[in-house]
């Protein structure tokens, strides 16, 4: 692929990142803090991943992410057990597996973190900028605990930028959300403190972007396997000093790896981009790619966390800045905007192909993928692969079928190497295929 890769050909694959130990400590401390907050009767809010968390951190409210918990259930391979509890209570197996897993854990008050489920919320915050499902899911949890729920309605943004009246609508609700937080926690929001937290979010995002930038090197110093796990702090601790400190370390380590031409796949034959949430219950699938010379150099999912950035000028109006940023998140924008972001990744990371995880659980993420695949093929000339799976429910995934399709896809990529990149094809698990 490049001279860089040839130089690295004899090098052994880089092992796990050194900062993984820090990550484990950091996330352990985060969840330990969550359980301590519960014991000490400090306010806990269950919050969606796309909701503005900064006011919560500024007010000393502990945010808890049931989506992150759903991913943990998947990665620890206990998701199916909890999904079945929810299904037994009437929740259709067609529903989001994060929701079913977390609802099952909530109903049984069991879970993998300390034997119990997540500590009960004092209030719940849900932003409808990632899907409709979270609103329904949060309603279920609020009813279960009889706790107040705030829904932030964020209108769809087909084309950027969002229209002024849409931002006004969000802004009005953000003011209301802060009043809601103050009412239910009896704490006051300090605006200077909010600005400080937003500055931390911006710093975190800048470091995250720096980390992603190092993956432009060949070999890539990190793969999707590293990034899916390392995104946990930017989801749960965005806005905190801890997140800034952690990503400073991660950036330094990846910088060093890039300079030394180290990476998980030193003999990098195929550079790939991943679209959609990880298959948490089968992260080893990434190693299957690695063993065949393929590495993921970018993911739309991890890339999406690079969006929460607030310039000093914008911070003169922090509420307005949040209204704008939280309206333009990946799953709230039109497919053309998503495609533009994906094409940019493909170009920036010099991708050889794009793998679409057709994720049965996440309709919002998945249902534009046929359009995106066509765009990738037509505008970048890259082959695409569809893997049909589910982010947390292993019952909706067939490993052997996926691997057969991966093998076929990699053969196509190999053929293109020989043919100078002339062939475009698309490969999909299961029958049929998108109109690509």
């Amino acid at each position, binding site marked *: 692929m490049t001279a860089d890769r040839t130089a690295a050909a004899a090098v052994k694959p880089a092992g796990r990142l050194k900062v993984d130990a820090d990550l484990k400590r950091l996330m352990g401390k985060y969840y330990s803090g969550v359980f301590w907050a519960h014991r000490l009767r400090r306010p806990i809010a269950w919050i969606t991943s796309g909701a503005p968390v900064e006011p919560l951190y500024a007010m000393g409210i502990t945010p808890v992410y049931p989506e992150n918990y759903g991913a943990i259930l998947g990665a620890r391979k206990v998701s199916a057990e909890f999904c079945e509890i929810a299904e037994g209570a009437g929740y259709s197996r*067609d529903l989001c597996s994060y929701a079913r897993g977390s609802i099952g854990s909530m109903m049984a008050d069991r879970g993998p973190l300390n034997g119990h489920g997540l500590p009960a919320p004092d209030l719940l915050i849900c932003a409808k900028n990632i899907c409709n499902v979270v609103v*329904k899911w949060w309603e279920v949890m609020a009813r279960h605990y009889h706790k107040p729920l705030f829904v932030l*309605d964020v209108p769809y943004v087909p084309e950027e930028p969002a229209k002024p*009246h849409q931002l006004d*609508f969000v802004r009005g*609700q953000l*003011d209301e959300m802060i009043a809601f937080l103050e009412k239910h926690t009896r704490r006051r929001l300090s605006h200077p403190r909010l600005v400080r937290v937003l500055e931390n979010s911006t710093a975190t995002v800048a470091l995250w972007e720096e980390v992603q930038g190092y993956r432009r090197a060949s070999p890539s110093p990190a793969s999707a396997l590293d990034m899916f796990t390392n995104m946990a702090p930017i989801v749960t601790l965005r806005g905190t000093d801890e997140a800034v400190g952690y990503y400073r370390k991660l950036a330094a380590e990846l910088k060093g790896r890039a300079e030394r031409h180290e990476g998980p796949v030193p003999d990098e034959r195929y550079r790939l981009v991943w679209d959609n949430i990880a298959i948490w219950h089968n992260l080893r699938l990434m190693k299957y790619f690695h063993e065949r010379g393929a590495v993921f150099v970018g993911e739309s999912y991890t890339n999406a966390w690079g969006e929460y950035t607030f310039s000093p000028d914008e911070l003169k109006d922090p509420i307005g800045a949040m209204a704008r940023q939280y309206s333009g998140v990946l799953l709230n924008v039109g497919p053309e905007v998503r495609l533009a972001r994906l094409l940019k990744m493909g170009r920036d990371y010099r991708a050889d192909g794009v793998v679409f995880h057709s994720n*049965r659980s996440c309709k919002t993420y*998945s249902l534009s993928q046929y359009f995106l695949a066509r765009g990738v093929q037509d505008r970048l000339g890259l082959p695409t692969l569809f893997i049909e799976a589910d982010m947390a429910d292993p019952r909706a995934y067939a490993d052997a079928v996926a691997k057969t399709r991966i093998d076929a896809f990699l053969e196509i990529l190999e053929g293109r190497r020989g043919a100078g990149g002339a062939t475009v094809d698309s490969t999909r698990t299961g029958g049929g295929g*998108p109109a690509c």
Partner: protein
Amino acid sequence: MDEDIARLVAELTAVYEGRRAYLAGAARFKAAGYRGTIGYFCTYAPEELILAAGFHPVRIVAEPGMVGPVDGHLQSFACSFARGCLDQALRRVYEGFDGVVFPATCDSLRTAAEVWRRHVPQRFFHFMNFPARLDAPGAEAFAAREMADLAEALGVASGMDAAGVLARLPGTAALTAEIRGLLARLWELRLTRARPPLTGAEALSVFLAGVVMERREYRDQLARLVAKVEALGMDGTGTAPTRLVVTGGVIEDPATIRLIEDAGAVVVGDDLCTGTRAFLTAGPGAGGGPSAGPGGVPADLGGLARLYLTKVPCPTKHPIDRRVETLLDTAKRGRAAGVVFLLQKFCETHAFDQPYLASRLTAAGLPSLVLEVEQGRLTEGQASTRLGAFLEMIAGRREVASGNGGEQR
């Protein structure tokens, strides 16, 4: 059934069943002064504005059956209603339409809208955002502004300006209010009479005709039907079948309701997108239920926004209390013995609400049954068996109740 009523119902049913031929009769609409036809989705699209712009509004519903071209655009786990509608459009069923209006509702329909925008060749496309949170501060202003944008776009498409569209709004709003009032009255008669004057399947046909027909023609036909039913006085003779209420999303095929009724029941009320949710409004804070009615006549965009914000909400909206209260009230006033959930396959919002609704119904002493509708149809044999068992269970409860010396309700 009274002969006049049967004839009126049959005429309306024929319009819906023969809708392709009906809509192909362009001369009918030109003679009525329309500039063209615009399709719309969902009960949150303000058809008053489509009418005010001089277009004939037609609700898009899927036709039952297998799908084809949509497989190239949406995965099989997308909502089966969204897939079915999009499939028809891709097969150019709506070729004669001038365009379409999609209001913001669910994730699947939002994606279907984007596919429609790119792949269905029509001169007009409009996606109208609408609050998901009905009680948000600024919801009314936001909805009104989105409706103003729609009015402006429709004005451009029709060759008149937005002011021209808005000038006609009071007239078209009065027409739709009349229709809502007539439907509400007819549904009330079905709900409260000991022997419902129309079966649930017939009522659904009557409703569905109204999203296809020229609206003044429909209003007149509906008024005749309501007058006949009012005059009938069908209370209290013979053995009444088991009274049921159905709840769910879009039911586009009256055969679905007929299947339930053929099992030995009569559907006396509903909580459907193709039913009460299209014409019943509950004032804010009124708690739904008895106060649910057809709503007033909005005079301007603010009034129109308020009308739609106070509709009995569908599950894509928050909060859902008014929906829950209205369903419970419908079942109570209709003296229903049970409720049947008709869930579109992969409709997430309805599926999320179902266990909660079922628990509330159980607490009110009402058993419920879940049936899944895929590509517009129930799986006939399986559904009939389950319905049979459900009705037997209800009969058993009645026997136990009467053995204890009293009616269950």
